[in-house]
């Protein structure tokens, strides 16, 4: 970090370029390349390059943080998306080019700090440095009468330095003292901690995993692979890593307030009442935003919520072919939501319904419905009903929230003259004796994320040492002080000299305080000057 070029630090700023035209042997070339890579200039350039290389990660949607953005671009501009993909722009932070820059940076960093650690280890065990041969080069110099004799005044100087926690070497008539080893120690700790973060990510992230699940009120999630809607295992994940527990959503309660200025409803609280069943028993728990739940060694987060109307469908023979809550995804702050019902078998050639849900439906002048509040004051579902092959048997993966309406035949709903508008308890009779559709009741759902992150502890520890090292390095100044005897035998004097590594506007005051303290002896009260 700071003062990489301090005089006795091994990192060299001067990279001796090979003489033009001179042939380099492979060993010399490697040595030259290594020195170039571990030089400070290279480190600065790599830092700036890392900053520049991160910019695309904020402009182009990333697969890791915004997968929808990526698929949207693929549908709106496939050529551009393909081009982006070729340059790994959707995966900036795992791309070859970004990785090579930061790996080079870390190789450069490690190549720099290892010699410095060895050097500093030696310095920590060595005596303070001897005074420079040219005393006149020192930043601060003081000449003091050696009151009470040479030995006594040197003793007082030594005590004054030790009282200020200088490391002191007394050698006959001279004293060498040094302070502030913590600066380089903190500096090195900071850099080692950076390597610690990277090493943790490299070694431990493979043990992590995360999965998502939509849970409707009354439903229970059991922690096994098949219970997740989506699951992202790390490289070393095994299903046996999932500890058994169950999680029931008893109820979900959102609270909204009306903002009169914006004339809009704002959520102020989301609370999910859960029951956790694990090896320790059955207990109730509350899950909120910003307040994750811990179960089975992993954390459970509340990430989304919405309405799940319970829809019941019977076929022409009166058999119930579908009876379950249907998750509707909200589209706006008043929770106007869309959902899809797919019944491939048991009713005609297959039945598909595209639904719209309005928690508090009002009729606009145009005749269309809208929701004027996120609270279910007048919950209403409308459907567009289609028959035909839903394509679920073909084996191709299908989006649960889309119907292949181009290949289906619409039999009811918008533009057919037969509107399907249901409030709880309402039943709609499908045309041609196909059956009935009932909005049986209304539930809510939550989207939860369950995550096990094996890197947290290592990164947190590294971050702690990073901050501690940074603060220690910045708060400490490396100072060297020397005292020697001069003057005549009848009029002996102590000569003080001091210098600091780097800028040190306080050095003058520090030396004054040391000299004053040595004049009095560090334990006596210093008379106010």
């Amino acid at each position, binding site marked *: *970090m*700071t*003062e*990489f*070029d301090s005089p006795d630090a091994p990192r060299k*700023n*001067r990279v001796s370029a090979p003489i033009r035209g001179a042939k380099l042997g492979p060993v010399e070339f490697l040595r030259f390349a290594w020195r170039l890579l571990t030089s*400070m*200039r290279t*480190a*600065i350039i790599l*830092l*700036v390059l*890392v*900053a520049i290389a*991160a*910019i695309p*990660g*904020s*402009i182009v*949607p*990333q697969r*890791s*943080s*915004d997968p929808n*953005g990526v698929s949207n671009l693929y549908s709106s501009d496939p050529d551009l998306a393909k081009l982006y993909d070729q340059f790994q722009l959707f995966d*900036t*932070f795992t791309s070859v080019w970004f990785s090579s820059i930061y790996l080079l940076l870390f190789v450069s960093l490690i190549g720099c700090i290892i010699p410095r650690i060895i050097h500093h280890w030696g310095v920590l065990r060595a005596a303070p440095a001897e005074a420079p041969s040219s005393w006149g080069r020192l930043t601060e110099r003081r000449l003091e009468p050696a009151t009470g004799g040479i030995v006594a005044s040197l003793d007082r100087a030594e005590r004054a330095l030790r009282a200020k926690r200088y490391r002191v070497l007394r050698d006959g008539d001279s004293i060498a003292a040094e302070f502030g080893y913590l600066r380089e120690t903190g500096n090195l700790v900071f850099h080692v901690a950076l390597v610690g973060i990277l090493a943790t990510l490299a070694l431990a992230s493979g043990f992590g995993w*995360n999965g998502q699940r939509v849970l409707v009120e009354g439903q229970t999630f059991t922690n096994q692979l098949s219970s997740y809607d989506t699951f992202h295992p790390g490289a070393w994940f095994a299903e046996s890593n999932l500890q058994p527990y169950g999680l029931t959503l008893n109820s979900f309660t959102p609270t909204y*307030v009306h*903002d009169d*200025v*914006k004339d809009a409803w*704002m*959520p*102020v*609280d*989301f609370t999910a009442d859960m029951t956790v069943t694990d090896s320790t028993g059955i207990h109730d728990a509350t899950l*909120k*935003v*910003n*307040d*994750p739940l811990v179960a089975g060694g992993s*954390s459970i*987060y509340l*990430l989304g919520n919405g309405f799940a109307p319970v829809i019941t469908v019977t076929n022409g023979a009166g058999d119930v072919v579908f009876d379950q809550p249907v998750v509707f995804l909200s589209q706006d702050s008043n929770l106007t939501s869309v959902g899809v019902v797919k019944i491939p078998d048991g009713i005609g050639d297959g039945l598909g319904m595209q639904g719209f849900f309005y928690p508090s439906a009002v009729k606009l002048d145009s005749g269309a419905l809208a929701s004027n509040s996120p609270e279910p004051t007048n919950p209403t579902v409308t459907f567009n009903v289609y028959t035909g092959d839903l394509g679920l048997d073909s084996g191709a993966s299908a989006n649960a929230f889309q119907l292949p309406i181009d290949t289906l035949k619409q039999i009811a709903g918008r533009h057919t003259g037969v509107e399907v508008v249901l409030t709880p308890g309402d039943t709609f009779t499908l045309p041609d004796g196909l059956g009935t559709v009932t909005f049986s009741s209304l539930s809510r759902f939550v989207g939860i*994320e369950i*995550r096990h*992150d094996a890197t*947290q502890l290592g*990164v947190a520890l590294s*971050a702690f040492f*990073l*901050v501690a090292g*940074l*603060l220690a390095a*910045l708060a400490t100044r490396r100072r060297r002080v020397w005292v020697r005897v001069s003057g005549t035998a009848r009029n002996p004097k102590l000569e003080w000299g001091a210098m600091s590594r*780097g*800028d040190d*506007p306080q050095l003058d005051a520090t030396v004054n305080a040391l000299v004053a303290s040595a004049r009095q002896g560090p334990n006596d009260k210093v008379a106010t000057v």
Partner: protein
Amino acid sequence: MSSLENISLIATYSAMAVYTISFILFAVDLAGRAESMGKPVPTRWLRSAMATLVLGWTIHAFADITRGISAHRVPWANMYEFGLTATLVLVGVFLGLNLWRDVRYVGAFVSGFALLALGIVTVNFYVSVSPLPPALQSYWLVIHVCVAVLGTGFFATGAALSSAQLFQHAREEGKLGGRSWRFLSAFPASDALEALAYRILVIGFVFWTFTVMAGAIWAERAWGRYWGWDTKEVWSFIIWVLFAGYIHARATRGWRGRPAAVLSLVGFTAVVFNFTIVNLFFKGLHVYSGL
């Protein structure tokens, strides 16, 4: 709109008016230094400039506190409030710094920048007090944004000194001659300006390190992961890396001086970019601007 909220807004506009006077006085002082014969020294306008700045800051602090009281929470939960508090901290850092060192010569820069930033957030991003959405209901809002505001204040003051350093450097090389640049001779030499800028930017860097870490801890609780390369996280990372580069540059022969100062200004540009363009035009999880 509650009456206290109204009072806060009126105080904000009053603070801007007083900052305008202060900025003019700082500018008159610099121009006066350029006009006077012999070695330019601070003019009598400097004292009035400082006095008006302190007055403006007091009104500004009143606006910020009443905003917090009327919202029943910390006054930095949306873009307007962040801007209101960050400019307060910026002027506060500048005033506090003057108790330690005389840096009044960058007063025109600081008052001008604070006025501009405060004007932009008030005119364009003003929103009335509204309740916090669940994602922001966390004591990490207090910690994370507070250190971000402090970091921004120090980065801005450092940027003021780094720009003064660049002008001074050019003048020392004889590139900025003539009467209009004479006021620079009342400034410290470029290497003294650099040493001061460095000390302030290092404090900014420490605050920024805390910002990123507090943000990561909060992100872990709110979003289930401590780092996910959200657009705001990307830019916080870029800023951290740029200032890390600056700190290294300052200790490296060949990078010390002008290149390091340029890097510091690039870093501050990224800070401003992160607050404006990223908030307004980039998609991400930090959509708290309330627009």
